[in-house]
């Protein structure tokens, strides 16, 4: 297939255009972009070397068509040809067509033709439909014959059929177009792909606009018919399969009536989509694009996270009848989940791609599978867990032995439903995270706790099938400096352990089986990335202050001992939030008091003389340890979590508070309570602290008391009550991630809502300001700790609002310190006053980015 290369000054433009082109191009189309300049390609410009590389990445004997915007793009594209071999150059064509129209026309043509000349010609006339629509003439279609400018172009098969030349023997039919948006690019592509399947020539005319008939081999010609919903089309076919072709087109148009084909935004590169694209991807092909999670570059052999199934201890068999009912209930629940997932992803990925979840639901109801499971329960006395596992294993094995690759892949669907149903019977997965050699880890998902276990020495990078940028796992990956990309499911890629893979966690690019040249290049980039990270770390030792000398302490969010060490090397001026969950997860019992004392003291020892703010256990939602048997909740984020859990488990809570007070004997330790929404919660927690103190006193155990105590402000309730809290607490810590999700009523992990989860929203900034003014009125300090504290553009705003401390992932500390040093506090205050008046996030970002650009603070 002919390859396409899009050259633009603007990376965003090229990426947008690539998305449009992918909508009309065949799935296996090779389309590369070369756009922007500078390390991140974010600056405006073109690079001849990048263009040459892009051409090579899609090159084959069949040739490459290069479409470019203007000015230097043209010069650079010409120059790129000089970097190709003579043989390659012969097969590369620079196309003078307008870049958007030309690219779309060429992309659609890829499915129909392997002929570079033809694709080139089609792209050249791509402007015609628009000109025609807007009444610009002359145009070849308008006159039903070729115009003058037209003749100088290479020939195209998109000829208009003069009415007098339609012979008697053709067949025709008249159909009404029912597609809501008319015959736009995607339905037109479907129409011409359908026509191409038959040994027949097909023409289409728009009777309502009285157009001549155009041959259904040209997307442009079909678009130029200007057919809108409700208009009548005459479809004419001639040749041995004329009748079949007409029937197929009739079917297609009927299908449009039932399932309209709408123009839609390019789908997000979510798991389902990439999955399918990967099936087509040959080794050494250009990078595919996932979702950036954690910046950095890595290239190494791949290691798939192995999952083994362990039967939960509680799953001993009840009566066979009960077991069979248990299994049916679990299946029914999964069926419901799949339907929900289908509905949700249909909007993002389109009916066709989301349909995978409907197909899985069919597997669940497969009569053979169910019958087998029933037998295993009733006759062999297995319990529900064992029976389902065995029945599925057998079915998967049968599929795995099939010759047909399609059927073999169905084994993975079986695996999926096995997993989904078994998960209903309790915690059953065991996964090995310790790698013996350096590798890039590929997994469906990693829980925050799994991430915490990763060793950055061996885990060079992570590729996740799911993953959103603000999940706790993502935060941790960034903190550990492990490059990561999400939205790429390699399960069906055909790759196996040990195959090489490269990732760029900033751009989201993933290279499957890169060739030696790409490996070398990526290794070089990875080395440079590590070096620059190292340099920043070194320059981060100075105390954090603004240009005019106002101190704003920059602290670290820490969620493991490893991160604590990282905080030290990043130049953190203390730990702003010690997330203690890592002590509690993946173990049968909560941590003991001495164990906790040891961990808190170790961290405090590393960070001294700076303070360590220990946050008590914050679980619920996605972070639940097994031994806290909380009842299942419909809305975990609005359920038992944060301080609410601790107050229900007095023993666990008291143990932690005792450990914190004991660690405070020799170190500056502060105590932070998560997600306090009411004054009653604060009072109750304080009572626990008094009690712990009294116990320790009685037992004669040395400890620090009182320790400074503060609350996490994560709910609008605590914002509105800040005046009252300010009289009670020693400090506030604003958790912007949760505050944002609760204020905007948008779940953090839901990829469909990621645009809501932006803490620079004026609704959040106003709340921060409210908390700060309440706190400062009583002489109390305020820390901002969510992800927002790591954002360069947020820094001057937070400083301007009067934040006393920022607590962020250690990784971002050097950069934020560097920016802080360029901010003048008075200017930051004016900026903060301005952004508080903004109506939306866009306005806030614009102001903040302008401010940053003016102080030259974008580049760390």
């Amino acid at each position, binding site marked *: 297939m002919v390859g396409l290369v899009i050259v633009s000054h603007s990376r965003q433009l090229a990426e947008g255009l690539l998305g449009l082109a992918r909508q009309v191009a065949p799935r296996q189309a090779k389309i590369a972009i070369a756009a922007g*300049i500078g390390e991140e390609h974010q600056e405006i410009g073109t*690079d*001849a070397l990048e263009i040459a590389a892009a051409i090579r990445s899609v090159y084959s004997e069949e040739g490459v068509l290069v479409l470019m915007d203007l000015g230097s793009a043209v010069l650079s594209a010409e120059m790129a040809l000089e970097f190709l071999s003579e043989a390659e150059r012969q097969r590369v064509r620079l196309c003078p067509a307008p870049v958007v129209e030309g690219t779309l026309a060429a992309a659609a043509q890829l499915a129909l033709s392997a002929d570079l000349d033809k694709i080139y010609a089609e792209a050249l006339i791509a402007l015609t439909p628009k000109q025609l629509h807007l009444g610009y003439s002359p145009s070849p279609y308008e006159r039903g014959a070729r115009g003058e400018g037209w003749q100088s172009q290479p020939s195209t098969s998109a000829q208009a059929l003069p009415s007098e030349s339609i012979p008697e023997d053709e067949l025709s039919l008249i159909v009404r177009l029912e597609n809501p948006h008319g015959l736009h690019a995607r339905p037109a592509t479907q129409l011409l792909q359908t026509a191409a399947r038959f040994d027949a020539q097909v023409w289409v005319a728009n009777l309502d606009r009285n157009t001549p008939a155009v041959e259904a081999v040209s997307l442009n010609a079909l678009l130029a018919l200007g057919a809108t919903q409700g208009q009548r089309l005459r479809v004419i076919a001639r040749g041995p399969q004329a009748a079949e072709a007409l029937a197929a087109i009739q079917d297609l148009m009927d299908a449009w009536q039932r399932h309209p084909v709408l123009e839609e935004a390019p789908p997000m590169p979510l798991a389902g989509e990439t999955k399918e694209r990967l099936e087509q991807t040959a080794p050494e092909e250009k990078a595919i694009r996932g979702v950036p999670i954690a910046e950095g570059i890595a290239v190494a052999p791949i290691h798939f996270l192995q999952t083994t199934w362990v039967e939960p201890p509680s799953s001993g068999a009840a009566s066979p009848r009960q077991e069979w009912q248990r299994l049916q209930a679990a299946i029914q629940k999964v069926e419901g989940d799949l339907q929900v997932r289908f509905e949700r992803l249909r909007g993002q990925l389109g009916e066709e791609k989301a349909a995978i979840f409907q197909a899985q639901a069919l597997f669940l109801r497969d009569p053979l599978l169910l019958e087998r499971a029933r037998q295993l329960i009733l006759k062999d006395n297995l319990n529900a867990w064992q029976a389902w596992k065995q029945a599925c294993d057998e079915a998967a094995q049968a599929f795995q032995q099939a010759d047909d690759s399609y059927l073999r892949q169905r084994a993975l669907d079986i695996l999926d439903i096995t997993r989904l149903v078994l998960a209903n019977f309790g915690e059953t997965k065991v996964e090995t995270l310790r790698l013996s050699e350096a590798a890039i880890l590929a997994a469906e998902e990693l829980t925050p706790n799994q991430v915490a276990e990763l060793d950055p020495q061996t885990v060079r990078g992570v590729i996740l099938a799911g993953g959103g940028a603000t999940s706790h796992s993502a935060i941790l990956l960034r903190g550990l400096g492990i490059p990561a990309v999400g939205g790429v499911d390699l399960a069906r890629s055909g790759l196996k352990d040990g195959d090489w893979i490269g990732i760029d966690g900033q751009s989201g690019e993933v290279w499957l089986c890169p060739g030696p040249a790409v490996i070398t290049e990526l290794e070089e980039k990875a080395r440079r990335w590590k070096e620059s990270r190292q340099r920043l770390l070194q320059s981060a030792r100075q105390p954090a202050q603004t240009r005019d000398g106002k101190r704003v302490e920059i602290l670290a969010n820490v969620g493991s001992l490893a991160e604590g060490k990282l905080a030290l090397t990043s130049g953190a001026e203390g730990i702003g939030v010690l997330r203690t969950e890592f002590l509690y997860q993946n173990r049968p019992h909560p941590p003991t008091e001495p164990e906790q004392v040891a961990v808190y003291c170790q961290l405090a020892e590393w960070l001294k003389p700076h303070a360590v703010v220990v946050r008590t256990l914050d679980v619920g939602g996605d972070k639940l340890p097994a031994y806290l048997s909380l009842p299942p909740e419909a809305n975990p984020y609005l359920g038992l979590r944060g301080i609410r859990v601790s107050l229900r488990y007095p023993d666990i809570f008291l143990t932690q508070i005792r450990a914190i007070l004991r660690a405070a004997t020799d170190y500056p330790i502060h105590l932070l309570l998560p997600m306090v929404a009411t004054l009653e919660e604060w009072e109750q927690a304080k009572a626990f602290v008094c009690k712990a103190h009294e116990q320790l006193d009685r037992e004669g155990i040395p400890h620090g008391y009182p320790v400074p105590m503060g609350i996490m402000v994560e709910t609008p309730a605590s914002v509105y009550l800040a005046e009252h809290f300010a009289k009670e607490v020693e400090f506030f810590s604003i958790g912007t991630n949760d505050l944002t999700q609760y204020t905007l009523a948008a779940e953090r992990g839901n990829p469909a809502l990621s645009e809501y989860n932006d803490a620079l929203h004026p609704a959040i900034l106003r709340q921060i300001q409210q908390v700060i003014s309440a706190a400062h009125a009583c002489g109390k300090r305020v820390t901002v700790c969510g992800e927002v504290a790591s954002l360069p553009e947020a820094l001057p705003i937070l400083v301007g609002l009067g934040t006393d401390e920022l607590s962020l992932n250690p990784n971002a500390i050097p950069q934020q310190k560097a920016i802080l040093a360029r901010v003048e506090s008075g200017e930051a205050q004016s900026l903060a006053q301005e952004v508080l008046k903004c109506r939306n996030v866009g306005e806030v970002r614009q102001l903040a980015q302008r401010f940053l650009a003016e102080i030259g603070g974008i580049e760390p």
Partner: protein
Amino acid sequence: MLTTTDFLRWIERCAEVIAANRDYLVELDAAIGDADHGANMDRGFQAVMQKFAQENPAEIGALLKTVAMTLISTVGGAAGPLYGTFFLQMATKLAGKAEISAADWAAALEAAVQGVQQRGKAEAGDKTMIDALLPAVTALRQALSDGVAFSAALKAAAQAAEQGMRETIPLVARKGRASYLGERSAGHQDPGATSSYLLLKAAAEVWAGVE
């Protein structure tokens, strides 16, 4: 005789001069273009200097090729491929040489300017870099055939480039972004011609003592 070290000094000087005139070039470009020429050129030459901080070029051809490739992938605007071609042509002409004569320099400069002309398809009077470069080549050739000392010939070339640059002021642009302005481009000095002049002036300055 010009040696590899002389060329290194020239390029270093170019980087200094471009950096010193960054804002001036931006200002010129803001009037009739997209206000990025100074920033682009400065970024390019700073990248070149970083390259040379890491590796020492073995000979003149290799040195110029490094300059060319770096400018191509860092400058961004039309100046990227144009100056890239300029240095690449020069590199081809001087490949493998550790020292060259005045005549070699003249031939290399001529090849470079021809390359730029072909790449940008500009003629004299189109209000482009060519308006500074072409007169410089002519002046250099003339001076050398008159038997003038090399340093004086370089000076003559730089002066011719300067004059060519000033003469772009009344011209109407016919190439590049400035051509979108039509008549309104008249009255402004061309930024590309200005940067070309700066490079040739740098050569005349650093090589003033070369025989």
